[in-house]
């Protein structure tokens, strides 16, 4: 054992507790009063995936790269009006079904990364608990509703190279 300290450890510890108490009295408590006020997660937070349906071409990339196999897509091909006047009608994929099973999702973000058409976005929302597990399967209408909560991508730090 080393030589005895001048101030006993017990007193020191009580000092820390006391100073914390005074700080709390001065600055207010650390607590976020949850149901009444909510903390705002950072813009990049991975809370829920939103779908911008117009951009989706049902290319299946997200579904195939999902490690959990929790994205279900169905679609069919149909003709769309030509881009230029007088052109031939184009064949496009029409999205019939886009479901994400949030009970199974591991929130890795691979689907958002691989999407080449900017159809999937992360939203920081997190309040969607359900009493029934089947309700955690969000269909494309519900995924589309999440789009409103998607924040702008943050600016980058100094020295970052623009992509």
């Amino acid at each position: 054992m080393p030589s005895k300290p001048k101030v006993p450890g017990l007193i020191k510890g009580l000092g820390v507790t006391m100073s914390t108490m005074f700080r709390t009295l001065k600055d207010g408590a650390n607590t976020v009063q949850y149901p009444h006020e909510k903390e705002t997660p950072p813009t990049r937070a991975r809370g829920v995936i939103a779908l911008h349906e117009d951009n989706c071409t049902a290319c299946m990339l997200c579904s195939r790269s999902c490690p959990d196999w929790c994205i279900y897509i169905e679609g069919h091909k149909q003709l769309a009006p030509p881009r230029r006047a007088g052109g031939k009608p184009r064949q496009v994929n029409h999205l019939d079904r886009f479901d994400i099973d949030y009970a199974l999702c591991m929130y890795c973000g691979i689907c958002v990364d691989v999407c080449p058409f900017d159809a999937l976005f992360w939203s920081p929302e997190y309040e969607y608990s359900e009493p029934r597990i089947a309700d955690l399967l969000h269909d494309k209408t519900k995924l589309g509703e999440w789009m409103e909560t998607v924040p702008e991508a943050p600016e980058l730090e100094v020295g970052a190279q623009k992509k």
Partner: protein
Amino acid sequence: MGLVDRGRMPAPLTKLFNMGRSYSMWVYQWGLACCAIEMGAAFGSPRYDVMRLGVIPLPASPRQADLVVVSGTVTDKMAPAVKRLYEQMPEPKYVISMGSCANCGGPYWDSYSVTKGVDQIIPVDVYVPGCPPRPEALLEGIVLLQQRIKNEDMAAKWRNEEFTTLQKTAALEKAKSQPAPEPIVVGGGPIE
């Protein structure tokens, strides 16, 4: 509690009981994996502080708990222990399944040693999504459960039936007996 068993409790008393139950839930923490730390943050950190909601995370044993939060991966080796623990809890009891692993197996859905969701062993009342869910997401799940309890028909719960609200039981009883000249409104509002 014979009165409760037979469902002979006046509605205002039920409401009072329900409110009391929803704001004094002793929660047993079944922390298993990553989610356990987020559950610890929700229960133990001054930032979230679950005691504000009337949830007390310090029961001495599952015998004294009303609610169990299963947070994390339930493996096949663990499953019997989870079930035994649940059986020890007194009725009425509630289960919150927290995170993808407890909901459905999550990232380990194809593993040879992981149970695909805790609801295969014990009934679950609220599923909280996330991997892991933020502590506030768990608080939301708890608030949701409290809303349900406030509206619950205690007698039905005691009889181990499916979740039924006061309104539903009242409607059933009304259909059985003669239609009363004036409908008696019992119970609280709809579940949010």
